[in-house]
Every structure is written in C-alpha cells, then in structure tokens.
C-alpha cells in the first residue's frame, strides 16, 4: 500500500506537468463543466458547513498561517442537476435518498476546497493542477495530487 512520493512521481512522470491554474481560471473551468448556483453567505443551511470549512482551511497547508480566520472568504456553489452533472449525481445519489445538491466550497485567497462528494473533490484537485514548484520540491500538494492519480488509476 505504501509507495513513497519518489516512487509515485516516477510512476506518473508522464502525467506530471506544471498546469496549476489560478482562482479565476479555476472558476471559469467550473462554469464550463457545470451549471453553478452561487449560494449567499447568509444561507442558514450552509452556515455551519462554511464555518467548518473555514476552520479546515485555517489549519491547512493552503493557508500555512497566511490568513486569519476572519480574513477567509468562502464561496459556495451548488451544482445544478442537469446533463452536465448527470454522471456525478447518478453516483452521488445512487440509492435515491433525495440528497441535497452537490456543493463546492472554495476559499478565494488560498484556493482551499471542500465538497460534499469526495469523488468530485478529488477531480477538482486534479483540475486545479500542480505547479512546477510543487513538482520540484515534492510538496504536500504534490503528494495529494499523486495519491489521487494513483487512486484514479485504480492502484490505491
């Protein structure tokens, strides 16, 4: 099960190219892939989840002490169920439990993300990409990227 980062890096060297996109580019990409609905900050249904995501971001390597809790800005988007998101919703609510919409939370300063559907969260991390610095320095972000690649290739 355990494969160190160098082994994984070697294994997926063909797929590791600096391709990290910034927040605006990422949002544009999301809008191309899904029909999104921006959720207002004061939406009671999301209040608790936004606070927990802020806390997660606060202690993450994305923030790394740069921003204070009150400076964090979480944008929440619901993914509208349509033909674009069909394949995700089909698996997300496979048992027909009338689940709430899939949502994505993005912290605008750090790029930290959260999502109530982990398969999509892993895809989003791949969409965001990886930087040259991450690849050269074997950063935590590279580890996450490689773990996801390994998972999606069916080896994890």
């Amino acid at each position, binding site marked *: 099960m*355990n494969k160190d980062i160098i082994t994984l890096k070697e294994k997926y060297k063909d797929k590791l190219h600096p391709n990290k996109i910034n927040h605006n580019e990422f949002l544009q990409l999301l809008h191309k892939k899904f029909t999104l609905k921006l959720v207002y900050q004061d939406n009671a249904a999301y209040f608790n989840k936004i606070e927990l995501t802020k806390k997660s971001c606060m202690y993450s390597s994305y923030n790394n002490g740069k921003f204070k809790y009150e400076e964090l800005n979480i944008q929440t988007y619901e993914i509208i169920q349509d033909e674009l998101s069909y394949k995700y919703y089909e698996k997300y609510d496979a048992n027909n439990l009338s689940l709430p919409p899939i949502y994505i939370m993005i912290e605008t300063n750090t790029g930290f993300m959260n999502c109530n559907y982990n398969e999509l969260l892993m895809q989003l991390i791949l969409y965001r990409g990886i930087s040259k610095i991450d690849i050269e320095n074997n950063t935590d972000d590279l580890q996450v990227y490689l773990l996801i690649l390994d998972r999606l290739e069916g080896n994890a």
Partner: protein
Amino acid sequence: MFEGKINAERMVIMKKKLSMLLTILIVFSIVLNSANYAKASAYPDVQGSFGATFNPNYSGNDLNTAKGFNDSQVNASASGDEAHIVFILDSYPPLATNVYEIRYTVTSTTLVSGTQGRLVLRNANFLNPTIYYDEPVFKIFPTTLFYTGTLDYVYIPPDVSFINGTYSSCYMYFNAYEQWVSGKTISGAIEIRRQ
C-alpha cells in the same frame, strides 16, 4: 356620582377587553410555541460519535488504542505524531426523512491528507442485526491538521434508536511520513433521539 358610575362601567369594560386581549395573546403564544416545538422535533437529536487513532511512530496495533462513545480525544499512550478520526451522524440542514449525513472530522498533530478503511453502520439489536451502511472509505482531502467533510449519506429506519458503527482496516495518510498508517478497528454507538 352619575359620572362616577359611568367611569366604573367603563373600567369594567376596559378590564374585560384587556382580559380578552391577554387570553388571545396567551393562546397565540401557546400555538406559536407548539409550532416551534414541532419544527424543532422534526430534526432528530443525534448523540454520540466514534473514532480511531493513528500513530505513525508505532507499528503495533496495541498502542493505537482509542475509545468509542463520544470520545474525540487522542488516547495513544506515547507522545509524538498522532491523528484521530471521528464519525458522526448529522441531520441538519434537514434532509429527506430519516436520511443522515455521515460526517467525519480529522484532527492531527502533523499534516494528513486522507483516510481509508471500511465503515459499517448497523442497528444495536443483536437478535435482529441489520446493516444500514457497509462501504469502503477512500477519502483524500487538502493537506491539513484539521478537516471535516461529508463521507456519505445513510437511511436509518424511523424505529431505530441506536446505531453501532465500526471503522475497520483503517489507515490515515501522514504527509511527513509519506505513508498510510494503520489504526486499530474501532467501534462506537450513536443514539438517535426522535421526539
């Protein structure tokens, strides 16, 4: 004297009006309270959680001890890097009837990025065991010391009050160690109070 009699009658009428107004207010208040109560009791009160501890400094399971039952504290006996995962059921914001969000929270002394294992939720009736959830878990999340996320959703029938949860064959990914660290299988109970 006649004027005094009229004033007294007016006072009586005023008192009657005031009394009626108070009665209406009290009735209105009772109706409002019961409506709020109904609203609150529509969402079951879920008590309890269970969790597992992972310690990369020890290979044996004997030191990776953890308690169930509302315990979110790391209980490994040695110092050093440790991570802890806790599962809870959440019914807010209101989901479909008797559907619960399975949420997990990871806390760690060092950066972690994922967990995997197998989560089973079953009723606590040993005579008639029913499994409500039995799925492999593989969750990768942005590297952090604290993370809380949605694991999945589960339907629990309305007549079930106690759930037993087990997280087995479980691992946590520690970035500094570049490896998945195993934890001891852990069980715990969650009570669902429906009013």
